[in-house]
């Protein structure tokens, strides 16, 4: 009982039995539950999936770009900047994302129309839709969580490497681009993958501010057809597949990691 458990063989007998049982359950579900709605909604499902994916990709991209200065300011920045960055992260990480989303969408959304210069600006047609608010909030949230990781990653880069780079005569910017950023990025990579999966799990919240993502499509299916479980199970399956794909991609990038 005390020994570290031996790894389980990939095709151990009990696994085959478990696989058979789960195959039977899936077969039962496919055969006896109602799936006729899938054909009617397949177009909408694809559109919803596409929206979820680009929302995830863009918010991770913007969030990561924003996390770099936030993390750097906390790790190596002057004191006032570090305090500002730190309090920004604390506020975002200390409040629920759903509340932030509603604050931005309903709060800012109720203030913008009262300002004439915004109503007459080029951006107004976009600001009347939900997705800019969703993208903004998700990016800010990802930035705050990722900045915490980047702070540790920046702080963990050995001082000697930076001093060596400076001694060779690299400028501060070259130092950052050639040494600090790549080293910190590869240090943060294992946690970055986990953060992206967490961000994916946060995307369905945008359905509450009327953005039609994959979650909202399935809510619509449930409202239209009065079927409770089948859409939810299918939706869960889609998210599991997405999470598995993300994990695979990050494993692949991690294995190419030149730093060991």
């Amino acid at each position: 009982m005390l020994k570290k458990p031996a790894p389980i063989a990939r095709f151990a007998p009990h696994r085959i039995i478990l696989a058979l049982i789960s195959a039977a359950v899936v077969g039962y579900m496919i055969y006896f539950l109602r799936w006729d709605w899938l054909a009617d909604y397949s177009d909408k499902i694809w559109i919803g999936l596409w929206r979820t994916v680009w929302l995830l990709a863009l918010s991770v991209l913007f969030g990561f770009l924003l996390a770099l200065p936030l993390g750097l300011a906390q790790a190596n920045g002057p004191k006032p900047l570090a305090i500002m960055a730190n309090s920004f992260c604390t506020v975002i990480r200390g409040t629920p994302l759903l509340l932030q989303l509603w604050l931005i969408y309903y709060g800012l959304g109720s203030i913008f129309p009262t300002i004439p210069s915004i109503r007459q600006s080029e951006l107004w047609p976009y600001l009347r839709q939900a997705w800019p608010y969703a993208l903004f909030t998700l990016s800010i949230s990802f930035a705050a969580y990722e900045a915490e990781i980047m702070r540790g990653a920046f702080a963990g880069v050995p001082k000697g490497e930076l001093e060596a780079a400076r001694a060779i005569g690299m400028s501060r910017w070259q130092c950052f681009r050639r040494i600090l950023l790549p080293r910190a990025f590869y240090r943060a990579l294992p946690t970055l993958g986990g953060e992206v999966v967490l961000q994916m799990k946060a995307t369905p919240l945008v359905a509450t501010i009327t953005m039609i993502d994959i979650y909202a499509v399935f809510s619509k299916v449930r409202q239209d057809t009065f079927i409770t479980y089948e859409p939810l199970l299918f939706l869960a399956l889609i998210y599991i597949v997405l999470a598995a794909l993300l994990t695979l991609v990050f494993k692949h990038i991690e294995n190419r990691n030149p730093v060991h």
Partner: protein
Amino acid sequence: MQLIADISTSLSLLAFSPPGWGGALLKGLLSSLQIALGGYGLGLLIGIAGACGKLYGNAVCRDLLGCYTTAVRAVPELVLILLLYYAGSDLVNQVLHWLSYPPIDINGLVAGIFVIGIVQGAYSTEVIRGAMSAIPVGHIEAAFACGMRPWQVLKRIILPEMLVHALPGLSNLWLIATKDTALLAVVGFTELTLITKQAAGGTKHHMLFYCAAGLLYLSVTLISNWGIKKLDNHLRHTKAST
């Protein structure tokens, strides 16, 4: 002058007695905290059992627990909450039906605690498993050699020793639990976020109420952080002195 009048009307909306919403917000905060505490506690129990199963259980048990933690960590909380909320209440009513009792309406509080607990359980299983495997095997062997039963070993050796390693992860989970309660607003449970939305929609003072609720959540986080720091110092101190 106009500004002062604006601020005073805004603040009167946060008064504790109706028509102010302050009391309702605090009541919402209380039910949020209740769910967070209950769900976190349930999650800890599941986590301890799951970690023991993953470390000391047989192959079937380990595989099943692996499926549980992987699935829960891959599916958004919002979807899980809907699934567990409907599936859980259906299941209870099915069982009641077999026992020939009339169906009941599941209490929102109980359902919320159950859902948050299942979600938290998956994460705390991983945290506690990691912390448990950091305990030197010799300590556990010594306890067995003294003649302790497995239950006593768990209570006297494994759990206290594991706590130091698990504290960062577990405190993170507590903060997540307090924020995850907001998701129950989507299934219509009246906790802080939903009450805030009702107050904001009713009075049209969106910014005021969302910021007030944000401050409440933030203060919970900051107070928790302070408590966690104290606990961490205490644990480190006791560990260093032994």
